Every structure is written in C-alpha cells, then in structure tokens.
C-alpha cells in the first residue's frame, strides 16, 4: 500500500508546485493597470471605427457638423498618450515592440488628421454649392415665369439638378458628361433668347456647378483614403504583442 500511495503523493506534490508557480506568475500582474491598458487599446479601435463611420456620415449628409470628428481625434490622441504608459509587468522586449507599434500608430493618426482637415474644407465647399444650387435655381425660376424661355429653362435646370444629385451619390464618373451637357444647354438657351446676366445668372450657377464637379471627386478620394488608414489594425497588433508578453 505504501508503494501505491507514493506515486500519487509525488504527483500531488508536482501539481502543487506547478499551480503555485502559475499563481505566483499571475500575482505579478497588477490587474488594475492591466484592465486600464487593455481597455485603452479596445477603446482606440472603437474610436477609429466610429471616426470612419462619422466621415461617411459627413460625406453623405447624415451629419451636419464636424464636432464629432474633432472630438474623436482629440480622444484618440489622449488614448495614444495613455498607451505610452506601458504597464511595468511587461518585459523590456515587449515594451520595445509596443513602443515601435505606437510610433507607427502615431504616424497613422497624424495622416488621418491631416486628411480629415482637407476633407472638412472640401466637403464644406461641396455642400455649400449643393445646398445653394436649388436656392439659386428657385430664385431664377421665380423671376422667369412670364418669360418665353421659362419652359426650356425649367426643364434644363430640373435635368441639371437630377444629374448633380445622382452623380453626388455615386462613384460613376461617366455621369459627369451629362452635367456638362446640361450646362451647355443653359448657355445655349441664354444665347438663343439673348438673356442678360441680370435676368439669368447662368455664370453663378455654372460657377457653383464647376465647384461641385471639381470638389466631388476630391472629397470621394479623401473619404476613401481616410477610411483606409487602419489605426484600429495597428491597435490590434499592439493588443497581440501585449497579450504575448
């Protein structure tokens, strides 16, 4: 009986030693620090996703102000600072790797900020003209109802607005010639009926259409570039290295 019990005792002893080692290892982790750091990483990913979502909302007029973009970037910068305070229980090799990833993340954030500033300016210019064109057209039409050129004018403006709104919502550059064709028709109506600029401010309407045509592809390009900067992926890499160490 003694011999049967002996291996069991040794197994129990070995188990105790292994478990004691594991518990000792876990106790070296400050859970509060760990919780804070890991939460900051996850929050960074969430903020980046929200930022991309807000860019799309701003582009497609679901958002009317840029405060959320500004606040989001400010929050990401704060989180970036927090992430530099790497917990003490991470060994030096892990800290070095995390710091390298953080440096790359900071560059990505800078790029995103820089592009978003340009996005705000050009998106606002685009929206300015998009908002103003219907007002301008309505004003022109109001003064022209009794004119002989009212019917062809109204038809051309209606087609123009339709083409503009369609082009605004798609990535289809083949719609551009349709808009230019409507502008050409406007000029033809003006020339045909010898309408003065005072009576029919086609120059202003054309200026705004041109502003729209120039800015729309730029804004689309900026939107695409911004949402393709993957700060969240970088944060994920930091999380993976952190978990390893």
């Amino acid at each position, binding site marked *: *009986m003694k011999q049967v*019990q002996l291996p*069991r*005792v040794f197994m*129990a002893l070995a*188990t*105790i030693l292994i*478990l*004691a080692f*594991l*518990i000792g290892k*876990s106790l070296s982790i400050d*859970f509060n620090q760990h*919780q804070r750091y*890991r*939460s900051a990483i*996850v929050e960074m*990913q*969430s903020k*980046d*996703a*929200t930022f*991309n*979502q807000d860019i799309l909302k701003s582009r497609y007029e679901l958002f*009317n*102000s*840029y*405060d959320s*973009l*500004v606040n989001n970037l*400010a929050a990401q910068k704060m989180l970036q600072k927090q992430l530099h305070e790497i917990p003490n229980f991470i060994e030096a090799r892990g800290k070095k790797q995390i710091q390298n990833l953080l440096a790359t993340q900071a560059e990505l954030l800078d790029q995103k900020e820089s592009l978003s*500033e*340009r996005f*705000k*300016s050009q998106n*606002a*210019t685009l*929206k*300015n*003209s998009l*908002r*103003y064109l219907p*007002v*301008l057209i309505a004003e022109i039409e109001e003064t022209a109802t009794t004119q002989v050129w009212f019917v062809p004018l109204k038809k051309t403006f209606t087609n123009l607005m339709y083409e503009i709104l369609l082009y605004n919502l798609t990535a289809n550059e083949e719609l551009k010639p349709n808009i230019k064709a409507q502008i050409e028709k406007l000029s033809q109506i003006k020339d045909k009926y010898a309408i003065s600029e005072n009576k029919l*401010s086609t120059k*202003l309407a054309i*200026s*705004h259409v041109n*502003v729209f045509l120039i800015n729309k592809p730029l804004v689309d390009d900026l939107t695409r570039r911004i949402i393709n900067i993957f700060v*969240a992926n970088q944060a*994920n890499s930091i999380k993976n290295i952190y978990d390893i160490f």
Partner: protein
Amino acid sequence: MLKSFRRKVVFPNKLIKRFYLIPVLLFGGVVFVFWQYSQQSEQLAIAPIASQVTIASNEPIQPIPLRLELNESKVKLGENLFHDSRLSGDNKSSCASCHHLNTGGTARLVRSIGIRNQLQFVNSPTVFNSGFNFKQFWDGRTETLEEQVENLLLSDRGMGGGSWSEVVNKLKQSSEYVSLFKQLYSDEINSNNIKDAIATFERSLYTPNSRFDRFLRGNQNALTEEEKEGYQRFKSYGCVSCHQGMLLGGNMFQSFGLLGDYFGDRGNVTKADLGRFNVTGDERDRYVFKIPSLRNVVLTSPYFHDGSAATLEEAIKVMAKYQLGRQLPETDIALIIKFLSTLTGEYKGKPL
C-alpha cells in the same frame, strides 16, 4: 487490533485525501485567476451605436453645455494671471489687454496693440468659448490653450515676456501667488502651472444659454419669427456649411475666397494673409484660415483676420460675395443679422 489497523489505514488515508485537496484548491485558484483575466471586455472593432440623444440632434448647430466642471481655485488663480501685466516684458500689458471681457473678449480694434505699442498682424479673436476651439489662432498653429498662452506670452510682438524664468521670478516676488500656487500645485510656480491656470480660466469663459440655444433645447418662443427666418436663410445660403457645430465655426479650416479673389481685390497682401500656409508650407493652404466662431458675434467687431469688416452687414456681404459669389438682398442680410444676434450667451449667469 482492529483499532490499531484502523489507525494505520484510515488515518493515513484521511491525511492523503486532505493532501489531495490542496492541488484541487490551488487548481481552483488558477481557474479563478484566468477567469478574471478572460472577463476583459473584448469589443469588435465596429462603431458602437451612438446612444447620446441630443435635443437639437437634427440641426447643424448644438447648444453650449450649461455647466462645465472646472477647478474653481485654478479658475480664480488663472483669472488673476489673465489680468496681470507682470506677465508681459514691460509690465504694461496683460492677456486682458487684447481680450477684454467687457468687450466680447476682444479689443474691438482692427488689430490689437502688443508690447511697446507694436501692432499685431491680425485681429484678436474672442477669448470667450476659446476652450472649445479645435485649434488656436487664425492659422491654427497651436492645438491647446496652454500652447497658445506660451506662444503669445513669449512672443516679441505679443506680450514679450522674454523667457519663462523671468516671468516665474516676477511671480515669485508675490507672496500671494506663492501661496496660491503652493495650494494648487505640488511643484509650485513654474511655466506649466502658469499655463495650466490661465488655460483653466479661459475654459471657464463659456457662454451658454443664448436665446438660440434655448430654441435648440426646445423653446420655440425663444426666437421671433424673423429670427427663425434668418436662421433658415443662414442654412439655405450655405453659411452653415462652414459655420456649424457648437460654436458655429471653430472646428475646421477654409479658404478665404472660394468664388472670388478676396485678396486680389483687397490688395496689400501680407504674410499674415497667407494663413495656414505659414504653418504647413503646403500651397493648398494659402489663404486658408480657421473658421471663426459666430457665438456672441454681434459683440466682436471688427471681423475677419484682417479686421476689415467694421460691421456685421459688411461681413455678411463679403462672405456672400467671396464664398457664394453673389450679392444678397438687403432684406435677407437683415434677417441673418437678426438670427446672429440670438447667439449672444451668458457669462456667470448674466447676458454678455
């Protein structure tokens, strides 16, 4: 004999069984530890659904918060420093010299006058609500109020404070400042704490509860019908494309002269007119400026970075011409001014 047999067999068996309990308990402990570890909230990288419901959620303008939590002692210290001319090189000008709280937080001059009567390069923007700006200065060269304080305080043309050591030494001569800083900061008087105190005071200069904010919060009677018409004009003409958000500005940059050559027509282009280009060196940033806030705008004339528009009417005409490419009817300008007058808020509970 039976008893002794039991003692030999049962007792050692009990001991061994208890011995086996130890690894079981330890294993349980390890499982608990790892269970705790696994309770870290793991969120997918998808945007959470916004749960904050804003009262004016469909409007491009949001009300200023009614209350901000700030350290009142720091605000008080910052207020003293803000009005203290010892921060300037010649001990003659303070922050308040260009940002009078009684005149809308500005100097009401085309360009302010700095140390040794030197004319500044641009019009001084209002200090009210400056804590909400996404960047400071017309060209956005600083991110934070603290950086803005340092930039002006040490500027040869601004307050010409010389160096931080000179400023700190001057303040250390005052036993009152020594005591106040000691109460608030463990490392007492130094540049960071001076900046922190002044910036905290500036953050306290917010102006909530304007009539327009009350309208945004649901009080339809806060505005007259004409003022509401003015707001509609403001939106339909496209002004709100840039003058949006809580400050009706202050959160983006824009080119001055989208549909007209403002600087070509005005002439005498200076380095300050290059705006954001002076910071980035990027050609696309020529003549680009931070969109100013329109909060309390009726109190902050003259307007634009060059102070060239003496009245709101002039400013609106210039904006319409160079950003919209047209002339607005006088009736519409008047309506927009009526709307803008509803943006005057309260400071410390009293209308500005």
